[in-house]
């Protein structure tokens, strides 16, 4: 660096005495400092102020009984956490989150894998089908939720029209405790399988064609090829796709609100709708923060241990 050597020569005497840095280091610092000082702070400030500090504050507020006005004063220790873990609705929400993960892994991902496998072949119109299946993923959760609220509507909806056609009584799917959660799970699969399908299509295209041809020559059947060749070679994609299902489940909110808002009888809450309903709506800042901290711990533990166990070599 031409400018650097010039600068180094000028500062040499002072530098030796000042910080014990070699002239080379001083020169490097001189060239690096402007870019560091100009380029890092905007991101650093925004991130610290709106992500890290609020997270820390959530931990702090969670020890108070506080409605958000004035400073938090009423210290109640771990009481909020006690209430959270004793609360039936919270436990339902937690169960629902795990139910969503289970359905994602057992229904959605196999479906996505199956469709991806059909579409990766030399099929005319494959691009069109991919587009259609990906479309729900691009729509906002709120829009998807409202559309399905219509589909499930007992008076005007499509499901009840089908039921009536076959001579059954129409039902309000979303208002019945025993159906509401299943109805939501179906919407989740509808909305997100296209995203997972895309991951698998990308994964399938990366598989070396010679391996497939070798399997063909050895006379492998379609099933054998799928289970013995394709699936093992898609290992890292499957692990990634499950990871997204887990993370997505823990964030699920936008879809639930237009569908059921957590009802009927608080049967369909997820952790985030629970936090919203009992922390934000009722302005229980301390309690809501405690739920946030619990959600944080669950997210970090799940994400971290999943990566450690399943994605170590990916």
């Amino acid at each position, binding site marked *: *660096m*031409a*400018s650097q050597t010039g600068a180094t020569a000028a500062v040499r005497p002072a530098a030796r005495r000042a910080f014990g840095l070699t002239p080379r280091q001083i020169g490097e610092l001189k060239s*690096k400092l402007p*870019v*560091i000082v100009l*380029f*890092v702070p*905007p*991101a650093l400030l925004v*991130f610290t102020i*709106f*992500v890290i500090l609020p*997270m820390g*504050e*959530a931990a702090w*507020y969670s020890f108070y009984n506080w409605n*958000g006005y004035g400073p938090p004063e009423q210290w109640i220790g771990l009481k909020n956490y006690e209430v959270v873990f004793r609360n039936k609705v919270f436990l339902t929400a937690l169960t629902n989150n795990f139910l969503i993960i289970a359905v994602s892994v057992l229904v959605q991902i196999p479906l996505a894998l199956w*469709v991806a496998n*059909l*579409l*990766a072949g*030399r*099929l005319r119109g494959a*691009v069109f*089908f991919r*587009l*259609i*299946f990906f*479309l*729900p993923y*691009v*729509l*906002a959760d709120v*829009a998807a939720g*409202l*559309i399905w*609220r*219509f*589909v499930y509507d007992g008076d*005007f909806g499509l499901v009840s029209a089908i039921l009536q056609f076959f001579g059954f009584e129409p039902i309000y799917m979303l208002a019945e405790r025993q159906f509401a959660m299943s109805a939501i799970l179906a919407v989740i699969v*509808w909305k997100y399988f*296209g995203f997972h399908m895309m991951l698998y*299509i*990308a994964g*399938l*295209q990366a*598989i070396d*064609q010679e391996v497939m041809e070798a399997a063909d020559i050895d006379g492998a059947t379609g099933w054998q090829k799928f289970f013995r060749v394709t699936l093992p070679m898609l290992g890292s994609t499957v692990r*990634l796709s499950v990871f997204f299902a887990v*993370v997505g489940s823990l*964030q699920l*909110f*936008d879809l639930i609100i*237009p569908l059921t808002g957590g009802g009927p009888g608080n049967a369909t809450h997820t952790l985030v709708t629970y936090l919203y309903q009992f922390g934000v709506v009722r302005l229980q*800042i301390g309690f809501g*923060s405690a739920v*946030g*901290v619990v959600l*944080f711990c669950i997210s970090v533990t799940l994400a971290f241990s999943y990566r450690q166990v399943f994605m170590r070599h990916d």
Partner: protein
Amino acid sequence: MTDISAKPAARHLSGRRLSLGHRIYAYSSLLIVTGIVIIPLLMTALGGFKTVGELRTNAFGLPYEWRWWNYTDILISQRYWLQMWNSAVIAFLTVGLTLVCSAMAAFVFAHVRFLGSRLLLNYFLLGLMFPAATAILPLFIRIRDLGLIDTYMGVVLPQVAFGLAVSILLFRNYFRNLPRELFDAAFVDGCSYIRAFWYITLPLSRPIIATVGIISLVGSWNSYILPLILLNSEEMYPWPLGMMVYQGEFATDWQLVLAFITLTILPTVVAFFAAQRHIIAGLTAGAVK
């Protein structure tokens, strides 16, 4: 990877004909799935042309009489355009700020090594670990204390902040893979880091700018929970909130609600089909890399 939507996987299964039986099986399966995916959307759009009574009796058919004014009434109403405008402003600011902040920071992480740079990068990557919802209450208090409740910036800044981790990661990985020789040559000629960013990195980075921009745009355009908590007057509501309010007002007039939903998601659908290649590549690339 970037071409997953565009090319019909010419290499895959090449050299083999699919048997007729397999093709029948494949197409019939795909058509059933297509039906399940598309019928709710189609019936939503058609339902907007019907009357309430007809929704009840003629759920799946075409409207007996196309009631265009269900749609035109919404199109000439102020609330529709206002919510779209709000969403557009918030999205525009979010994408712009996300690109600027994260590209600059990522450049430093990709090219400048300094004491604690690794630690600082990991600090940002913490943001990948938890959903925005965990800190939503303190965030509300903070935005309120800053006087930003019910302003565009009050929504934009948290959205940018929560998008930074992914954006910085994507930018950094891309920047690091640019040819090293270009930078070495430039630095030998006395080029400063900032000039290198402007004249070498940025001109070569259009694909990654598009990827990060799309992720940020789709996220902001569809975002619901942050505006829900940080805005409180209806004139400021972006469309996901506006749609919920509309549904609340016209609860049982489903034909109006359906028309409103259709018109509101129309820009997304049009944009998706117009730029499908970039959108699919962007959204999946963001996930994979």
